[in-house]
């Protein structure tokens, strides 16, 4: 094991002498954590509204006012015909069109019923769904107001009513920052663990120093540990910097313990580094290694549940995410930060990652031959 000491010494020296280390350790986390969350705000707000009012009555004006003052909608277009208003949707100027027919107020009062048309650009289904739900909610409130105007409370035909009480747990501000920042941090740490580590080994291959190692009495496991440990430490350092930035800039303080995060991260990194190691045993040139890392990273990135929910994916895609170590960490990160989950709650994920670690590292060790 003395050889391991020398290996680690050499690795750490090389890492700290590399000028890009500063970039990786500080600049990259800052950029990723400060720009990405700004971009990844999925909140449905500022819905652009187009209105066609054929009635011009007191009620129609009141309704429009109520909708606009709710804060969800921005009145962007006021047309005189529906086809004109539709043009707004076609050109992406408006997301939703509200058409109030002629005789709206009269019909409501005289015939007890009136119809409003809401047309939504449904290309983004979630936006259309929530937008139309908001507007229907406001219309419903308005409806109640109208009813109250005309009917005395006791004369109301008592009908069974179910009151629905809503509670939003764990993210009371309904904030996308808190949801995205932990996930983005996971991405950052993953990149260090897999791509950088893998590239480092392939670079030694290209330079020929690996051959020098192979011809020496250093054991396979010593060499592999000599590569794993420094990058493991580096990744955890970046994690720390990232958590710090999250706290200072976004005020994100985990509901759970930092310790839980670190314990899981340590195991996660074993798995991810193992993957990087595995990739490096197959690549001969840095170019190959970068290309493969890039595509693997892209797939892991996009199919991890970071940007789109795993539950929305088809079954076969969900199975792929179960094979993706990144999705576990993203899940755990969000659970610990937002819900305060503890080690006991994430034992399933820990086991899964241990499995990954054994699998990837095992395969890599078997693959790595000092003698070809």
């Amino acid at each position, binding site marked *: 094991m*003395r*050889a391991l*000491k*020398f*290996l680690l*010494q*050499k690795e750490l*020296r*090389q890492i700290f*002498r*590399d000028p890009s280390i500063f970039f990786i350790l500080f600049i990259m986390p800052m950029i990723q954590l400060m720009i990405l969350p700004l971009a990844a705000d999925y909140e449905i707000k500022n819905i652009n509204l187009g209105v066609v009012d054929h009635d011009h009555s007191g009620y129609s004006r009141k309704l429009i006012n109520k909708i606009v003052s709710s804060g969800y909608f921005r009145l962007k277009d006021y047309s005189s015909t529906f086809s004109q208003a539709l043009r707004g949707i076609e050109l992406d100027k408006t997301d939703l069109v509200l058409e109030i027919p002629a005789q709206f107020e009269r019909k409501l009062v005289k015939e007890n019923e009136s119809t409003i048309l809401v047309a939504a650009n449904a290309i983004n289904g979630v936006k259309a769904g929530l937008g139309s739900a908001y507007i229907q909610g406001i219309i419903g409130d308005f409806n109640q107001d109208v009813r109250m105007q005309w009917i005395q409370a006791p004369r109301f035909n008592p009908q069974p009513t179910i009151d629905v009480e809503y509670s939003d747990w764990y993210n009371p501000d309904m904030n996308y920052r808190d949801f995205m920042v932990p996930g983005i941090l996971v991405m950052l740490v993953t990149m260090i663990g897999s791509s950088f580590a893998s590239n480092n080994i392939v670079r030694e291959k290209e*330079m*020929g*120093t690996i*051959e*020098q*190692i*192979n*011809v*020496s*009495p*250093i*054991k396979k496991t010593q060499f592999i540990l000599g590569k794993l440990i420094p990058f493991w430490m580096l990744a955890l350092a970046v994690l720390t910097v990232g958590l710090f930035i999250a706290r200072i800039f976004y005020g994100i303080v985990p509901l759970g313990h930092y310790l839980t995060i670190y314990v899981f991260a340590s195991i996660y990194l074993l798995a991810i580094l193992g993957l990087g190691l595995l990739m490096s045993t197959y690549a001969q040139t840095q170019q190959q290694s970068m290309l493969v890392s890039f595509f693997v990273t892209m797939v892991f990135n996009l199919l991890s549940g970071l940007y789109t929910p795993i539950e929305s994916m088809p079954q076969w895609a969900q199975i792929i995410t179960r094979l993706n170590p990144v999705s576990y960490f993203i899940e755990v990160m969000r659970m610990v930060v937002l819900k305060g989950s503890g080690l006991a709650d994430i034992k399933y994920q820990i086991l899964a990652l241990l499995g990954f670690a054994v699998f990837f590292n095992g395969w890599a060790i078997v693959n790595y031959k*000092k*003698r*070809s």
Partner: protein
Amino acid sequence: MIGEKVISAEKLTKRFGDFTAVDHITFDVVKGEIFGFLGANGAGKTTAMRMLCGLSLPTSGSAMVAGFDVYRQNELIKKNIGYMSQKFSLYEDLTIRENIRFYAGIYGLTDDKIKEKSNLLINRLNLAGQEKSLVRSLPLGWRQKLAFLIAIVHDPAIVFLDEPTGGVDPITRREFWELIYDASSKGITVFVTTHYMDEAEYCHRVSIMVDGRIDALDSPANLMKEYASSSMDGVFLQLARKALRMSD
């Protein structure tokens, strides 16, 4: 030259699929010898050497290096040999002293020994005062010499050199060979591959590989007599004319 055999190969063969890179070669190397392994590019020299170093598993045949069997005692061989690759594998982003320390350390030298050897080595190369500079800043010739001395820092029985003098000027090559003589006089066997025929004359014995076979094996003097040539170049040309294989 009568002496204890440190390398012994019998019908050593390496095949890659249909292609036979090394074709049943048989030879011995005795202790303290400077043994030259010559041949054109693609003749199989490097492949043969890699088998002896434990970097490549032979397809058939047998070999013994430093008293150990290449099949079953591979790791023991590695403790007793040194190696210098074509690329002079030194870490460019580490200093001279750090490179020495690393390689000495992984071959099991104690801290005291490491210090001792480092100083010896640095002085031998007249680099005192510069040992903290990065290897990257050394000119090619110095790197070459440094790589060689590091390869023998643990006083191995045999040192394998793979085309060590590629790309350096004749004066540096001369100085390099002085280091080799030095090592040989201390009892270290030197096994060197090269395609520079003039270097063959520096060796005690040489073998010439053609198409994976050893077509000649003797001292340079004897070979020049046998092939009626005044230089090893001439010997080589006669043998190489028969070659079927093109270079890599």
